[in-house]
């Protein structure tokens, strides 16, 4: 019988092989990536259907009762697996359905099968008689007369429970909006399971004399499941195409903005970087990059900062933002701005750490250049003010130099006397030393203001700073027959700032005041420099003069570059002052005093808790 070809011996193996193929395909997906569980259950169900199909073919072709009994007894196993796998598939694919129904159905089925296999006689169902039937096309097959065992009802109940679970899962999915899937998969499974079981019952009770087609019915279930699963696969394919397009677009954007991308898979410890990111670091596209290699490329000055930023991001904040220099292998330096974030899994553990890199070398360069330019401008302003002081500087220097020369020449004369007037020499040498130090001090003050160009912030006291400037200008003020008065508050808090730049501001304001009073008669020429503690945590510095004041028209333009009221002024002095004070987060203001003359007020934020005493 088995050796003859008829539609039965052709169709059942076809069902089996179709299921095997589908099962293999999805098993491949299981070992790939993505949502694994539904594919696994699907594959198990498909293989089980293939096996069931084989069992059915054997049953159809067997005329030996004992053999029939044996096959029928073992057929329960793949059928049970098939039903359980289908139910599990639905559970994992839908994410709905009452779990206890599923567990109860599958467990009962297991119990029934175990009982059937372990007892000496089949307890679920067994054939008591076989008869041969010939169907159309001359295909002969065996039809059994079945007697249900004592456990048959348990098995039936398990199937009903599984049916109930499937109905419940489908209904819930329907309610949640997944209607098509609920109908196709859930409805299909329900229908075909119902048909398969119902049909078997009809045959076994002798009401129908057709071949078993449980596997046929389940092929329907498998097809319904495969359809839905493949629609997922199709969607994945579509998504991957879109992803490719989007990657292509972002790559385009990245190239345009010279951005690089990177992703660190923390659990796998894999660092991926786009070609443009690799180019930024001067790493070839096929070199494997590790975190160590990355840190090696980061400039030593920035390594700690970058490490800290990464740790902060991984440990909680998620955000990552840091600028650092990269030391390329060919010795070049590149400035990188990195922005990224950490993606955490449900347990709050960091999963992916990814972000973008931008080459900001040019921006940094121009920032540095701008800062240098500003420094140079401020420096030029200082040089120009110092130029105004040159005459009095010369006077101040010539004073000690003249004394030194005279002392030295006097010493020569004393030595030539007979006997040499040695007693004078000690005094002379002491005086020479003193004057030399004095000249040195003048030069130091001058150099201190002319030397540095860039800004360097420290905590400093305003009063000594004002006194230094006062010493610098006092000779000039004397030449101009102007009195400079200091009125310094004793309990000033310190400020955060650059000494030279702040001195430049004070110097500029005093020099302006001195110049403003050129036309005034001598006794009226007074510049008052005062410092005060502001109520709002500030330090105030005022420079007031007794000159003609500032015209109303000039007041709003005073701090603009190239605005000047002096015949040969550059108009940069106050503009530079303004910029310096702004850089110190302070304010500078000009006004006219009620009693005549101009008043300039500089307000600087005080550094909390520091007092100049």
């Amino acid at each position, binding site marked *: 019988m088995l050796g003859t070809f008829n539609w039965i011996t052709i169709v059942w193996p076809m069902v089996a092989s179709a299921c095997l193929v589908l099962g293999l395909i999805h098993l491949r997906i299981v070992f790939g990536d993505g949502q694994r569980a539904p594919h696994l259950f699907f594959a198990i169900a498909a293989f089980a259907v293939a096996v069931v199909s084989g069992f059915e073919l054997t049953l159809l072709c067997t005329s030996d009762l004992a053999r029939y009994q044996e096959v029928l007894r073992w057929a329960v196993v793949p059928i049970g697996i098939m039903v359980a796998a289908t139910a599990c598939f639905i559970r994992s694919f839908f994410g709905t359905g009452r779990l206890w129904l599923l567990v109860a159905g599958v467990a009962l089925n297991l119990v029934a099968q175990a009982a059937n296999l372990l007892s000496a006689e089949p307890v679920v169902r067994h054939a008591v008689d076989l008869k041969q039937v010939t169907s159309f096309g001359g295909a002969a097959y065996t039809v059994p007369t079945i007697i249900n065992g004592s456990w048959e009802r348990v098995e039936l109940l398990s199937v009903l429970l599984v049916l109930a679970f499937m109905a419940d899962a489908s209904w819930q999915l329907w309610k949640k909006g997944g209607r098509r899937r609920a109908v196709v998969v859930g409805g299909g499974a329900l229908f075909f399971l119902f048909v398969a079981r119902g049909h078997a019952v009809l045959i076994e009770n002798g009401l129908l004399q057709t071949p078993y087609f449980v596997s046929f019915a389940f092929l329907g279930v498998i097809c319904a499941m495969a359809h839905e699963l493949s629609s997922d696969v199709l969607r994945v394919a579509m998504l991957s195409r879109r992803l490719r397009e989007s990657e292509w677009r972002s790559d385009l954007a990245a190239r345009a903005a010279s951005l690089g991308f990177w992703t660190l898979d923390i659990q796998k410890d894999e660092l991926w970087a786009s070609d443009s990111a690799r180019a930024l670091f001067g790493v070839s596209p096929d070199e494997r990059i590790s975190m160590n290699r990355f840190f090696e490329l980061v400039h030593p000055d920035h390594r700690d900062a970058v490490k800290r930023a990464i740790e902060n991001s991984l440990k909680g904040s998620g955000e990552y933002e840091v600028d650092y220099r990269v030391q390329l292998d060919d010795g070049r330096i590149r400035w990188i701005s990195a922005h990224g974030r950490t993606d955490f899994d449900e347990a709050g553990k960091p999963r992916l750490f990814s972000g973008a890199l931008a080459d900001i070398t040019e921006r940094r360069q121009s920032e540095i250049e701008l800062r240098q330019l500003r420094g140079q401008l401020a420096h030029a302003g200082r040089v120009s003010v110092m130029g105004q002081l040159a005459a009095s500087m010369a*006077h101040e220097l010539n004073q000690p130099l003249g*004394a030194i*020369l005279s002392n030295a*020449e006097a010493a020569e*004369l004393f030595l030539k006397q007979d006997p040499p007037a040695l007693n*004078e020499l000690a005094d002379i040498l002491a005086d020479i030393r003193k004057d030399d130090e004095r000249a040195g001090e003048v030069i130091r003050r001058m150099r201190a203001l002319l030397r540095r160009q860039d800004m360097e912030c420290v905590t400093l006291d305003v009063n000594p700073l004002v006194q230094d400037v006062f010493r610098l200008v006092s000779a000039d003020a004397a030449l101009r027959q102007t009195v400079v008065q200091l009125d310094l508050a004793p309990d000033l808090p310190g400020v955060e700032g650059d000494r030279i730049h702040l001195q430049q501001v004070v110097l500029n304001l005093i020099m302006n005041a001195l110049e403003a009073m050129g036309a005034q008669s001598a006794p009226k020429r007074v510049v008052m420099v005062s410092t005060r503690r502001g109520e709002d945590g500030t330090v105030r510095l005022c420079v007031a003069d007794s000159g003609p004041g500032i015209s109303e028209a000039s007041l709003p333009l005073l701090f603009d570059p190239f605005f000047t009221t002096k015949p040969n002024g550059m108009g940069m002095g106050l503009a530079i002052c303004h910029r310096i004070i702004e850089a110190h987060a302070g304010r500078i203001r000009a006004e006219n005093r009620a009693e005549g003359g101009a008043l300039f007020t500089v307000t600087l934020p005080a550094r909390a808790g520091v007092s100049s005493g």
Partner: protein
Amino acid sequence: MSIPAPTVYVVDDDVSFLTAVARLLRAGGYAVKLYSSADAFVKDPPPEPVGCVIVDLHMPGMDGMELQEVLARSSSPLPVIFLTGHGDIATSVHAMRKGAEDFLTKPVNREKLFEAVQRALVRNALQRAAGARDRELRALYETLTPREREVMTHVVAGRLNKQIAADIDAAERTVKAHRASIMAKLRVQSVADLVRLSQSLGL
């Protein structure tokens, strides 16, 4: 009356420079007196104008220029040497025009300083000598009677005795007598000497 030794008066607000210059001048053999400001000098002027003044141009209070003006108003001004930390051309020209002996800038070397001081002292001595001769002549002139002084102006103007007699309404002989008396009192031998003397007296 004994004439005191020439003294160099140094006025500078910079004490250290003042000491150094004083030392140098003393080593060079000069008598030195120091003032730390122009006001101090004006308050306590030298008893006799014998010597010279070295003064800083820029000082608080009265400056060097003002001191020069004060000195110039006195009957026998002391020569002034300016010594300054920095001098521009305009100031030095102004000072020299006002009669400054020299205008030196600090630091100044010994030769230049001594040379300037020496020149100033010589000028002071000459001035003083000229002043003494002047005073002597004036004393002689003081001995003339009003009539003689009147006659003298006519003589110096080159008029003849006869013309003078007509002018002052006196006898020619009387004019002659006056003339002889004038020549004797002023100790001159000729009319030419008398004319020179009258010029130096500023008549």
